[in-house]
């Protein structure tokens, strides 16, 4: 044994927990987290005085084993007969720890169907089906399964009636319905912010807006650029540019984000670069004798596909996707408004100056062409 070995050999295992701590630690390589499922559906029980719900509750067998002894022979394997042998205790457990409340009263569990198994994500779950008789509509859930045993346990609650979204509940007292709004609100907020962020960090979209905005303070008279006398005309022009750009990109953003139309991102990104170069060139050498509004609309269609790349592959359910799309679009408009509010007043103030014409308008357009072409070649390479 070398001196190096001898030095190290005698000094190991000094601390109880040291052995694991130095491991790189990001690797919870994930089985599934502990998750249970409860589905509630109003039942058509004729003549009943109470409101009756059909309930389906599912709990992973791994979780069930922490609560009820479903491996009495200790072979670490759970058979169907071992589970069935605990039917009574399982039923009592669910009745005691999955308590649905209707106002001040507790719903009564009835008609507990024979146990079954369901498979979710490749894992086996105990499937239970029972009725709940409630005096009034359900208003709360006191959920105590795995309380004090697994802090990461969550219940995914779905309710067929009332268009309520999926709720994720922790152990404890949960008012039903209250969290749902905040869930949708959170989605809307996230994508609103994402829309603003995406526009303001998307240099290509900003550059495109810039090349469309800078000629808005001019009118062409006999091939000469003349600054508009009254700001109102320029303001109207900017309003129509922004509106047509918004309308156009909203159309393609919706088509792409909802998966109706799909165009490769690389192709779109290259086209966006070309659209900027073209719009900037059109400032210098008017090629299309159309108003910038039309240009904004046509090229806005292309930019919409670019915006959609953020949303198109996100794993969102349809309802959430639509909400995300709307919020994201509003976010883009807000971002656009911020940009216009910053840039346009400066253009208005400086429109009569030589500096604006030579530096902002001509040089700005030239630099924009160079940048856009650079992006184009970078993106197609």
């Amino acid at each position, binding site marked *: 044994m070398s001196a190096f070995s001898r030095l190290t050999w005698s000094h190991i295992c000094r601390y109880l927990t040291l052995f694991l701590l130095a491991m790189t630690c*990001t690797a919870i390589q994930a089985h599934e987290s502990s998750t249970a499922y409860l589905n509630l559906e109003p039942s058509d029980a004729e003549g009943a005085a109470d409101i009756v719900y059909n309930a389906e509750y599912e709990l992973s067998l791994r979780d069930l084993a922490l609560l009820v002894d479903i491996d009495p022979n200790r072979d670490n394997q759970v058979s169907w007969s071992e589970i069935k042998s605990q039917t009574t205790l399982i039923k009592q457990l669910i009745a005691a720890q999955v308590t649905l409340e209707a106002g001040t009263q507790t719903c009564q569990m009835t008609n507990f169907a024979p146990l079954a198994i369901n498979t979710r994500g490749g894992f086996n779950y105990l499937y239970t089906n029972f009725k709940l008789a409630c005096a009034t509509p359900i208003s709360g859930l006191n959920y105590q399964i795995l309380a004090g045993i697994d802090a990461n346990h969550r219940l995914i609650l779905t309710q067929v009636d009332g268009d309520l979204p999926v709720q994720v509940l922790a152990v404890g007292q949960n008012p039903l319905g209250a969290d749902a709004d905040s869930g949708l609100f959170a989605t809307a907020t996230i994508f609103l912010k994402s829309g603003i962020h995406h526009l303001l960090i998307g240099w290509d979209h900003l550059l495109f807006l810039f090349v469309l905005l800078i000629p808005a303070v001019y009118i062409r008279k006999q091939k000469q650029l003349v600054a508009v006398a009254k700001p109102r005309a320029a303001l109207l022009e900017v309003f129509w540019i922004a509106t047509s750009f918004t309308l156009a990109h909203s159309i393609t953003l919706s088509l792409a984000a909802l998966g109706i139309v799909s165009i490769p991102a690389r192709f779109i990104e290259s086209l966006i670069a070309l659209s900027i170069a073209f719009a900037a060139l059109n400032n210098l050498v008017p090629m299309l004798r159309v108003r910038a509004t039309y240009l904004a609309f046509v090229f806005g269609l292309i930019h919409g596909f670019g915006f959609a790349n953020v949303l198109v592959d996100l794993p969102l359910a349809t309802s959430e996707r639509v909400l995300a799309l709307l919020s994201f679009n509003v976010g883009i408009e807000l971002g656009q408004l911020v940009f216009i509010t910053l840039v346009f007043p400066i253009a208005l103030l400086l429109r009569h100056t030589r500096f604006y014409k030579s530096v902002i308008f001509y040089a700005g357009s030239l630099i924009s062409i160079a940048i856009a072409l650079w992006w184009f070649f970078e993106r197609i390479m």
Partner: protein
Amino acid sequence: MHWIKQPIRLLSLLLITSQLLYAAPFLPKSDQQILEKLPSDSPPARYLNSDSFSSGASTLSPEQTSKLLERAYLQGDPRALGQARAQLDQTTDQSVETLMLRARALQSDHKFSQAKELLEQILSKDATNPDALLTLSSLLVVQGQFEAAMSHCKKLNDGSLRVYQLACVAQIQSMSGELTQAKQTLSELASIASGLDASTARWIYLMQADAALRSQDDSLATQVFSVMDDQTVPALMARADWLLKHGDYQKTRVLLQDHTDKDALLLKLITAQIKLRDPDAQKNLALMKERIEVWRIRKENAHMREQATYALLANKTDSALQLARENWQQQRETADILIYATAAIKASSQKDIKLIRQFMTDTQFEYPALERDLRLGKISGSSAQALNSQTLSSQALSPQNPSKETPS
């Protein structure tokens, strides 16, 4: 007739997905049917009868909590992490030992800022606490903050902690331009690893496996994999990475086919299955999709690496890049660099490629094959093979490509 293959494939994927998502409850065929295998160290069931439903929660045992955290890591079992957290939630104990357990739980839950704060709190009480120093150093390495990580390693200057200090330094060296030196140190440590406790030995082997993968060192890999276990998740991941890198898809499939319950391993298995044109690849992709849907509903953000990998395998390149980018903000281990680079190359995102190359230049992170791929802007077999599986659709149209076998 090639045109017909794609719709048929999509249809079958849809069928499998719908079966998985909307699987109906069933009654097992026989009473003897085995429905679940429990971990060998499963705790006894909490309730023996209905009278015990109101019994209080179990008390904290640091040894038990530590074991749960270990199982969470070694078996990739978030349930064990949840159980450890539940135990910690029940105590107000502020001893260093309990605070350390809390820090480890936070770290495992990807709550890095809170973990860092707690570790700094421990170090303010006990500046030379080796557990805190090592954990903080590892956490900083994960986030790519190598200089700060090194400063904590250097504080492990007690002679009795020599092994840990050397390993701690080697871990940083291997990520910051001194891979050769790190390999040398790790070889020396590995030579005495049989006398170390299993976890420390595994830590050393895992670092060696990572170094072998990046430097394409066959002899080091052979040596490491001959002594490293093939049961724990981190060890299986390292083995699978090596096999996939060498195109050993058949061996990867054999290695991982019984580990479909662990997401990270399932993703590696799918990679191999796609290469082998195994029809189970589609079934497993659908399974993975179902699990990711649950993460999404639960709003869990600790799985971005796995989600990005899934998105790549499912040919959702833009989504993969976005997830890999977000993951990159959290953690910067070899696997994170690899997934980010692969997504960036596949999406032809020059901005991201430039960012990764800049990171590799700044930190001197050595991975020549990956650096070459980033420079050329295309994925070769030598670096990102583990993630460079062709998508199902493109594989379906390509000729059969038998796996190339190499000795493992």
